[in-house]
């Protein structure tokens, strides 16, 4: 009664893609709802224009951490203000 490997592969595809799409669709609605709730009831000072230049990278390839850069920026700023 073992299903063939092909059938198992088909099952994986059906249920896998199904789950992925259902999950991300639910997440779309959840995110939209969350944003609506927060924007309406918990408005805040906007922190950035969605284009986070300073911390944009999600790659592990950057050699200098954003934190280090901001420390350095602070050091330079501090000096400039003397």
């Amino acid at each position, binding site marked *: 009664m073992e299903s*063939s*490997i*092909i059938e*198992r*592969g*088909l*099952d*994986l*595809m059906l*249920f*896998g*893609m199904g*789950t*992925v*799409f*259902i*999950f*991300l*669709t*639910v*997440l*779309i609605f*959840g*995110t*939209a709802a*969350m*944003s609506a709730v*927060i*924007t309406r009831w*918990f*408005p*805040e*000072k*906007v*922190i*950035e*224009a*969605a*284009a*986070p230049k300073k*911390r*944009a*990278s*999600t*790659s*592990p*390839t950057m050699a200098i*951490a*954003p*934190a280090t850069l901001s420390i350095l920026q602070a050091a330079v700023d501090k000096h400039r203000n003397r």
Partner: protein
Amino acid sequence: MENLNILWSDSGIAQLTFGQAAMMLVGLILLYLAIRKGFEPLLLVPIAIGTLLVNVPGAGFEAAPVYDAAGHLTSPGGMMYYIYEGGIATGLFPLIIFMGVGAMTDFGPLLANPKTLLLGAAAQFGIFATVLGAVSLSHFGILDFTINEAASIGIIGGADGPTAIFVTSKLAPDILGAVAVAAYSYMALVPIIQPPIMRALTSESERAIKMVQLRPVSKTEKIVFPLLVLMLVAMVLPSAAPLLGMFCFGNLMREAGVVDRLSDTAQNALINIVTIFLGLGVGSKMSADKFLNWETLGILGLGAVAFCIGTASGVLLAKLMNKFSDSPINPLIGSAGVSAVPMAARVSNKVGLEANPHNHLLMHAMGPNVAGVIGSAIAAGVMISMVQ
């Protein structure tokens, strides 16, 4: 004389097998690709060194420790044994890497345009199509893959190294080396693999579509979003909870604004330390008997197919969404749904600039790009739940 014999019989040349020599060559090729060609060097350099070391004849890097009957250690294990058993068989290393990646990820562009999450879903089609391909090869007797191996091969198409390692170490540890090498190599080849497919599936005018500027996103949204993902995963697919839980934890540390110490360490010292050992540990599965066979060629081939199908699916769904959406959607951002963060988003941007020099797609492509990370983690959870 006897001592000369000991030294000779202990020496590498006396013990070297053809397979080991070939695998050392593989290690050197990986190093060349990593250092000269820039193929994801952070992982491929340690993997390559791991490959070299584990194939040193008689060095015992993989040896398990030996205990006597009373439980005392008579001979310690090799370094690779401890690294693999402690960090990869337990799943800890990929999870810690995923936490660090979460701490490096900005969900701002995704939050500004949440419907791009769908593109991150579409691109995962590459994963499952490849699973089907692998089982077909097996069914027709061309290559011999189990369903566990097929699932692990498919996940290469997720374009997400730690996810691929996590799944494969659970489902099919014997092919871990080949799968990891394929995953990272193709992630590095994204700028070569994706553009032809993107150009073939889109018209010049589609590629020139300008998208409206993303709305600003508040700090609170960024804090709540990882929790939302985490709760949803907990309710829907607990087998994806380790990966996405650690990813969301890292992201929450980043956005919370009160634990910057921890976030910085997760993004730097900790992820670097774990990357070194993860690479060495993956390399320890690069032995001749596990790597030098036709199945590895099949894995490399199927992995490339997975990337192509994933790219195409993303672009095609983006085209479709553009038809029905109020605001215009440039189909080029669909290819970023495979993840390979941030390389794939940069490719979208570059191809877009060719069609319209004033059209900057980078931020728009970051949405599907990080959505692809979530998407392939979900796919990984399905694999673990249904296959194991």
